[in-house]
């Protein structure tokens, strides 16, 4: 409602002295009101289910039990196990994003260069990728338990062929978690990065060659500098997706809170404990900050990349 009144202001001021311009502005004004009325449900809905939860998180992070302002909640952020959860989370996200970005980037290159633009292989891989990139959560945990869990097919295969026993806890170790995360990171990278590789024109390579450049020079001087911003922004998106992933880790580790999302889960379950007051909100707030910084960086890099499009 307030916005409607606010819109009223400039329109009324713009209404000049002459009568015809008055009716014009009135018509325009009515149109604006109509537009606003149609968009109202959207904004009202997002205010209730997107803005309100975010505000609850941010306000809750700064509140004591009786609602007074405090910064004390943040002291928990610097406790040893919280810091180590953040370090682990960031480590796992960076490692899985680096592997995902490199492997996914190479795969996109392999799919595009020297292939028909709409070939079967490419369409098949990109369709599978878009499924697997969404394939997070519990099902992904099952897939890896079936592969290298205690009774996994891979575990048995390795034992029969080489006689080695895979450590049954490998999946809940950090390298194991990184491997599991790579499973959705690589397809995600393929989806994000394919359009970037598409934008590389074969003429650039021809131009490079006719000017006497060799393969190494083409890659280091032409292709990589052009792809770099898109690659970095894709890497940042992968980081954000790994950092905020919850379901897979929750299904793999039922008790240990070694990642930030798992710690939030623990804090939410113990909300009645006075020692935990505001802890879930503080953790969630810190996650928003990390992801927001990463997203802003990604937008900034993308803008740079925009110059080449």
């Amino acid at each position, binding site marked *: 409602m307030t916005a409607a009144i606010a819109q009223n202001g400039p329109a009324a001021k713009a209404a000049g002295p002459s009568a015809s311009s008055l009716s014009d502005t009135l018509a325009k004004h009515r149109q604006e009101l109509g537009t606003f009325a149609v968009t109202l449900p959207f904004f009202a*809905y997002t205010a209730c289910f997107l803005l309100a939860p975010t505000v609850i998180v941010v306000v809750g992070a700064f509140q004591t039990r009786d609602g007074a302002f405090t910064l004390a909640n943040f002291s928990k952020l610097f406790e040893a196990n919280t810091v180590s959860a953040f370090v682990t989370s960031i480590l796992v996200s960076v490692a899985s994003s680096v592997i995902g970005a490199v492997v996914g980037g190479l795969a996109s290159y392999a799919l595009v260069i020297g292939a028909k633009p709409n070939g079967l292989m490419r369409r098949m891989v990109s369709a599978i990728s878009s499924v697997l990139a969404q394939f997070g959560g519990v099902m992904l945990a099952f897939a*890896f338990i079936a592969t290298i869990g205690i009774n996994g097919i891979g575990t048995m295969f390795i034992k029969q062929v080489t006689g080695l026993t895979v450590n049954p806890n490998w999946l809940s170790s950090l390298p194991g978690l990184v491997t599991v995360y790579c499973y959705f990171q690589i397809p995600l990278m393929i989806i994000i990065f394919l359009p970037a590789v598409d934008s590389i024109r074969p003429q650039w390579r021809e131009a490079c060659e006719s000017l006497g450049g060799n393969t190494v020079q083409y890659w280091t001087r032409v292709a990589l500098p052009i792809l770099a911003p898109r690659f970095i922004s894709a890497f940042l998106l992968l980081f954000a997706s790994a950092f905020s992933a919850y379901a897979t880790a929750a299904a793999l580790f039922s008790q240990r809170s070694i990642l930030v999302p798992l710690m939030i889960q623990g804090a939410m379950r113990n909300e009645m404990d006075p020692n935990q007051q505001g802890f879930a909100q503080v953790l969630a707030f810190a996650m928003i900050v990390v992801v927001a910084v990463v997203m802003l960086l990604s937008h900034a890099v993308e803008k740079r990349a925009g110059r080449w499009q």
Partner: protein
Amino acid sequence: MTETSTTAATGAATEASATKPPQLRAARVRKQSIIKFVILLVTLGFLFIPLFSMLIFTLRHPLSGRWSLAPWVAIFTGNGESLGADLTVLWQGLGTSLALCVVTVVIMLLLMVPTMVIVHIRSKALERAIEWVATLPLTIPAIVLVVGLGPIYRWLSADVLSTNPIWLCFAYVVLVMPFAFRAIAVGLNSIDVKTLVEASRSLGASWVKVFFRVIIPNLWQSILSASFISIAVVLGEYTVASLLGRMNLQVALYQLGQSNSQISTAMSLLALLFGVVLLVALDLISDAMRKSKEN
């Protein structure tokens, strides 16, 4: 294994040199196609091994080593007694998730389509604002959102609605918004909405008529793809449901996985297969869109 891969590699190489992409010198084609083949083989191998393991896992009992179709029989007959598993939780979760798909898609379409169409015609500034809001859930992860949704849902279930898991749809609409927005925006940008609207308005059509008889028929492909991606997201959702203590397909799969991992792995494979079908359909739709745009 090595034999087949080398024959396949030479096959790929001959095929590549036969089609001779214009940008490559023939001398380089062969070498490049081998590199390409190795990269794709390794990547696809990594992606397919877990899926293959899942399939074997459902067929071979992990402890006794007996091969049987029992988990699949249990799912398709709806009777898990032969494996000592109670499937009621699974059906309950599946039913909830399917209902959630329908309700979420309906709310999402009602909320997004009219809004996006009108701002696309009328106001560039509002369109940018809506884009910003709709893609915001990418920056605010579900695990963060659920911390704030907790109090809201406590209030909703105690004072306004019930604890029925169907009300998760309100949160799910927010989760699918970024994907739905992109799908619909692609459609809006590919047709000239403004001219269509002006033409039909000047021919005397009412706004309602313009919307249902002109805009929707031109946008149906993006509406369909927005719905499909929303269904895929809702079917895979675990975070919000489990932390708010509601039952849906993923929560049921997790619970069942504690007692009978074979059945829940089989069900996961089925859900994945359904996802593949949905997204391949999506690919075909976007392909059709591209073609109709070219013509």
